[in-house]
């Protein structure tokens, strides 16, 4: 079919251009033979890589110098901007190219980056795969493991590019993506899967009636899915791909509540704070809206007064200062050396001239 579709286009172009170079023609044939499975997709675009005619509406650049071609990564069929507007403005629609049944959306259309649409497609696939497989060398125990991983990823890339086992690979990729999401944000995935697990267990109940042992395994797995961290069943969970020597991802520690005092607390030894004290000094202040409306807490005052009353009661200056002197620990002039010299009768310190 592809040949039929292409042949008239090619001949037409030949007629219009006054003959294309034989080289481009042969190249085109070559590319077709390389990937017979998706030749039908690539054909229209490749048939006239230098063409100026929209394969859908057949209008040419000759008539419309501002014509722009767009492609959709779904099937990579090229069409002009006005065709995209016309066909896809009212929502998703099937690709207008004969033989291509894919449903396209307008939002996905874009102008192509690479001249060769095969390259364009490969770049897209590689981008998608690289997003999922973003392990670093440091994530692996040995270099050989990392290299094996890279090899495996490359294999996935080529499977998708060449269309080998696409269905199976896609399925595994989906599983891998889910596992990855669960790893990065265990809470979010739990919210989604919780209703799912019940559903799954209902259906699987019917399917797996044969073996009690199998059911037990499933029950336990669904139970472990419910555990808060969700990381306990990594071994049994199917992640689509298994890489040897991959270090287990360590979830970052949950943030502790902020403590402005950095673990320090004040524990009075000479008084026990009673919370409220009744004294005629305070009655006026307690009932004054000017005080309590502003958020002034009398307890602040009580505790401060009590702390002042007994703070330093057990400090014996004579002993402690003597101890400090004998230790040679005198930080009195440490940060303010120049000030100390001034205090000792030297010249006054000159402030720096900022201008």
């Amino acid at each position, binding site marked *: 079919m592809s040949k039929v579709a292409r042949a008239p286009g090619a001949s037409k172009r030949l007629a219009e251009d006054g003959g294309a170079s034989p080289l481009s023609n042969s190249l085109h044939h070559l590319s077709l033979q390389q990937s017979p499975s998706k030749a039908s997709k690539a054909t229209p675009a490749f048939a006239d890589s230098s063409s100026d005619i929209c394969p859908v509406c057949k209008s040419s650049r000759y008539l419309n110098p501002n014509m722009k071609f767009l492609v959709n990564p779904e099937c990579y069929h090229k069409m002009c901007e006005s065709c995209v507007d016309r066909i896809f403005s009212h929502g998703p629609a099937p690709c207008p190219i004969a033989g291509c049944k894919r449903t396209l959306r307008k939002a996905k259309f874009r102008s192509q980056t690479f001249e060769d649409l095969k390259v364009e497609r490969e770049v897209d696939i590689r981008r998608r795969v690289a997003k999922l497989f973003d392990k670093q060398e440091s994530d692996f125990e040995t270099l050989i493991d990392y290299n094996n991983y890279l090899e495996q990823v490359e294999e996935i890339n080529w499977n998708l590019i060449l269309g080998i086992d696409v269905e199976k690979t896609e399925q595994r990729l989906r599983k891998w993506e889910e596992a990855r999401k669960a790893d990065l944000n265990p809470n979010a995935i739990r919210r989604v899967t919780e209703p799912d697990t019940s559903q799954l267990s209902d259906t699987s109940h019917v399917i797996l009636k044969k073996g009690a042992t199998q059911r037990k395994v499933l029950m336990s797995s669904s139970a472990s899915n419910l555990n808060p961290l969700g990381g306990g069943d990594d071994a049994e969970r199917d992640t689509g791909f298994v890489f040897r020597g991959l270090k287990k991802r360590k979830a970052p520690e949950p943030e502790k509540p902020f403590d402005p005092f950095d673990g320090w*607390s004040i524990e*009075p030894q000479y008084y026990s704070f009673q919370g409220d004290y009744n004294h005629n000094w305070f009655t006026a202040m307690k009932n004054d809206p000017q005080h309590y409306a502003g958020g002034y807490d009398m307890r602040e005052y009580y505790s401060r007064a009590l702390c002042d*009353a007994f*703070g*330093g009661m057990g*400090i014996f200056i004579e002993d402690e200062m003597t101890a400090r002197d004998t230790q040679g620990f005198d930080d009195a002039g440490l940060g303010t050396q120049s000030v100390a010299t001034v*205090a000792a009768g030297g010249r006054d310190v000159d402030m720096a001239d900022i201008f």
Partner: protein
Amino acid sequence: MKLTEDDLYRRSSQYKHWCFTPSKLALLRQKTNIQASERVKANVARQRAQRAKNLDTTSASDSERANTPGVENGADGASGNGGAVGDKEVDCLTVAEEMRLVDKFCETALELGNFIKVPAEVTATTIQYLRRFYLYNSPMTYEGQNIARATMFIACKTEGWHIPSSDYAAKFANVTQEQVLAPEHLIIQALRFNLEVRHPFRGLKGAHVELGEMVKGTYVPLEWDKRTGTQIQSEILKLPKRAGGAPMNLSESDFRKRLEYDYGVASNILKTSAQLTDTYFHYTPSQIMLAAHLLADEPLTLFLLATKVPPPSPIYSKTVDTIRACAAKLSSHRSYTDSSTSLEDKEARDKKEKAEVLAIIKKLRQCRDPDKMDLVKLNEAHKRDAVHDGELDERKAKRRRLDRENAQKEADEFWGPELPKNGAK
């Protein structure tokens, strides 16, 4: 990680930089005195030599003569031959004399505080600043009156009792704003930028409130204390009025009156004797407060202490000793003994002291440091665009002016010029 009240006090600048043993304090004052005397002697000698040089060419200017100590009554040296000018050695103040002067300054500051009606905390902070300032500076170098005025202005600011400097200066006769502001930087430097002074006033209130709870029977004892609140109440009501007196059994309201009276006495002691002695350097505010309370009501204070520290422990006896020593220091000051001495004694003593202080002040006039006489001029010399030796360094001034104008122009280019005000074009 736990902090007790004592640890909190250990973190204060008062504990870190302004606590001394008596011997260390004496040493410090000695050192300051020696340094100041040396400087005074050197400066006076230099000035005399200068004048002698000037005498050879022209007669000494009047202003210079006025700035030189020892000229007023030592003019005979100046009029004679130039070589004989520096023959008379300057008689400097001794440490004890300096101390008397500083105490006098502090008393004046107390009166000053009453005069311009600042809160007691401001006055107390002023006095502590003054005491700290004269620990590292001698009255010979910086004269007390100006320093006290400026210090009180700083204390007003640090205690949150704000007043514009112009208003403040207007409270005194013949005092300009510059005179108040000029020594500020100097004082702050001498205080080593430690502006916090921990006073015992709020602590006294705390202790008073706590005693009130005990009298009411709602006091919550510490963990080691096995008594209940009501037990403490019955015990406190039985306390004798004087140490060693017979136990009494006052009613709750009567005891409350006693508390009020004690508070008044203690607070008065804290405002006067505690300020006018060196207690702040040797004791913590809590100890000073308890000492003042001890002077007001000994049995009650000891009872309070016994609820805070278990009496059998060595800490208790040590604390009591410390507080008693502090109380002895407080009661040694004459402001405390005033009430007990007769009027004639008091007058005679005041007269004698006044004469002594006047003599010291007279002596001080002879040994002032000539370099530090005019604080306003000194302050101006420190500032940018200062007038050095009567003329501005023109190139420097011009460069600065250009710099400033350029900066302004750049700012205008970036932000746009200033908006015209109220429709003015």
